[in-house]
């Protein structure tokens, strides 16, 4: 009798839980995909560099952060110059995106030239240390400049698109609540998707894109085809860094306030996304980013519900990483990775 009762109770609780999870699902997906798109584009930078040099560019998170600062300060400069009121928001948006992407792209090329290329024949660990050094350097330079100009290293920018839009997901299915979406989320998603499609086409359809893959597979032989390997590596850094910097702008627009340390955690998660997708695989990185974004938002929204309030949303990263590690235990090469590295 007691047994039956318990069974019924658990069943009922389970049902409530599912309906609660369902209610928030549209919002989870909206927020998760937005965040995931940011992870995905940053993850591409890690995976591209790894694919070609087999080393983790740990400074990539800081390149993202620098992009956020360049975009934000460009916008602030426009504003003080009185230019902002005269131009449509989307024009300003494109301008700051392009500025930040050019800036970080060239910065990436410079970093490779100065900090990595001289170490190309050194053990990968040494290059990694160099990358960590570059990270600290970038954090401190950005902090110094931000402090100098604004008196604080926390910088709040100007949001170009911050209205909230209600999506009537409840009309699709009445178990769903409505979802709320910042207009900027749409821009984040649209720009991220455009960047990813553009990159995918570049890598798979253009001569330099194919050369990039050729260099990633066999640098020595690629050079025998008159491919200038250093040029291809510089191009890889330019593209990867520009993508990272552009995403920084999207991030700053989405979340308002930035500081010189935002690249660290975000970089770790994007790096994890790259590993989850199979490091070196660009499409894998895109998928991994979206996956982690949704997983993180799902945990944030539902952990309390699932554990009856014992663990709250603040444990989202723990849960996300437990799931990731579990996946990687069963598929260590990542979801889209190659199982064995082929010999040449």
């Amino acid at each position, binding site marked *: 009798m007691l047994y039956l009762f318990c069974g019924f109770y658990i069943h009922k609780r389970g049902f409530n839980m599912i309906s609660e999870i369902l209610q928030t699902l549209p919002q989870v997906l909206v927020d998760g995909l937005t965040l995931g798109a940011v992870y995905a584009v940053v993850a591409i930078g890690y995976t591209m560099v790894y694919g070609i040099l087999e080393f983790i560019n740990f400074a990539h998170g800081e390149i993202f952060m620098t992009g956020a600062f360049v975009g934000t300060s460009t916008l602030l400069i426009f504003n003080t110059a009185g230019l902002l009121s005269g131009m449509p928001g989307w024009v300003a948006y494109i301008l700051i995106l392009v500025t930040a992407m050019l800036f970080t792209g060239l910065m990436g090329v410079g970093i490779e030239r100065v900090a990595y290329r001289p170490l190309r024949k050194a053990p990968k660990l040494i290059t990694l240390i160099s990358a960590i050094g570059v990270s600290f350097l970038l954090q401190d330079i950005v902090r110094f400049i931000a402090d100098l100009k604004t008196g604080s290293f926390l910088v709040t920018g100007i949001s170009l698109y911050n209205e909230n839009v209600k999506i009537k997901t409840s009309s699709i299915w009445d178990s769903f609540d409505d979802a709320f979406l910042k207009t900027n989320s749409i821009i984040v998603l649209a720009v991220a998707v455009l960047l990813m499609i553009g990159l995918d086409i570049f890598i798979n359809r253009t001569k330099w894109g194919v050369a990039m893959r*050729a260099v990633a*597979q066999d640098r020595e032989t690629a*050079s025998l*085809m*008159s491919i*200038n390997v250093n040029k291809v590596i510089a191009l890889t850094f330019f593209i990867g860094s520009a993508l990272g910097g552009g995403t920084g702008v999207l991030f700053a627009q989405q979340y308002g306030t930035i500081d010189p340390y935002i690249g660290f955690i975000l970089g770790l998660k994007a790096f994890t996304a790259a590993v989850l997708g199979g490091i070196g695989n660009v499409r894998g990185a895109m998928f991994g980013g979206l996956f982690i974004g949704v997983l993180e938002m799902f945990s944030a929204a539902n952990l309390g519900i699932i554990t009856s309030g014992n663990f709250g949303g603040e444990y989202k990263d723990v849960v996300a990483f437990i799931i990731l590690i579990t996946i990687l235990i069963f598929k260590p090469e990542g979801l889209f990775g190659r199982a064995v590295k082929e010999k040449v």
Partner: protein
Amino acid sequence: MSLLQLQNVHAYYGAIEALKGISLTVNEGEIVTLIGSNGAGKSTTLKSICGQVKTQGAISFNGREIGSQPPHQTASEGIAHVPEGRRIFSRLTVKENLEMGAFSVKDKKLIKERTEQAFVYFPRLKERFGQLGGTMSGGEQQMLAIARALMMKPRILLLDEPSMGLAPIIVEQIFDIIQELNREGMTILLVEQNAYQALQIAHRGYVIQTGEIIMEGEANLLLSNDQVKEAYLA
């Protein structure tokens, strides 16, 4: 006229001296073969020409010194190197592999023409055009490696053991194609362990041993030389 000339070339891997003063010449229109056993320095000789190892001495191509320039520049000046073990890009398609061979060619029409020409020599590549390089058989991969090198329309073709690991009948096919390429005017430097077959199609030959040229001459004279017979044709 000599197209490629090495004079007293030394090559180093760190402190190891792999070539100890090598001199050899390839004239326009010739097939020259470089034979020797494992570790003799055959591949190192080709790598020296392409700028893939550090060298001392004089390497001139078409009368110009090329010893210190990077590989991609040497390649773009008309030296195509089919490396040992084929080294095709296994995760690129046959089409993409060929495109990479033509990396320095700007004219799309020219690339198309040369692709068609490659199909004449190697009809198998046409059937495999969209397939990933790594999924092809060893023989097909060797054909692709040669076809890829021809895409840049080189002035000289360096071949590093094209017979390696292939069935005798495939080796025969490949050697036939090498000979045909030569008849149509291609200058070829052929590195081989398979000395008998290499000397049969070559005009001249060099024998290399532990980083030194120990013998050179007309291919048919080397074929009948007792020392060569004993060491390489047994």
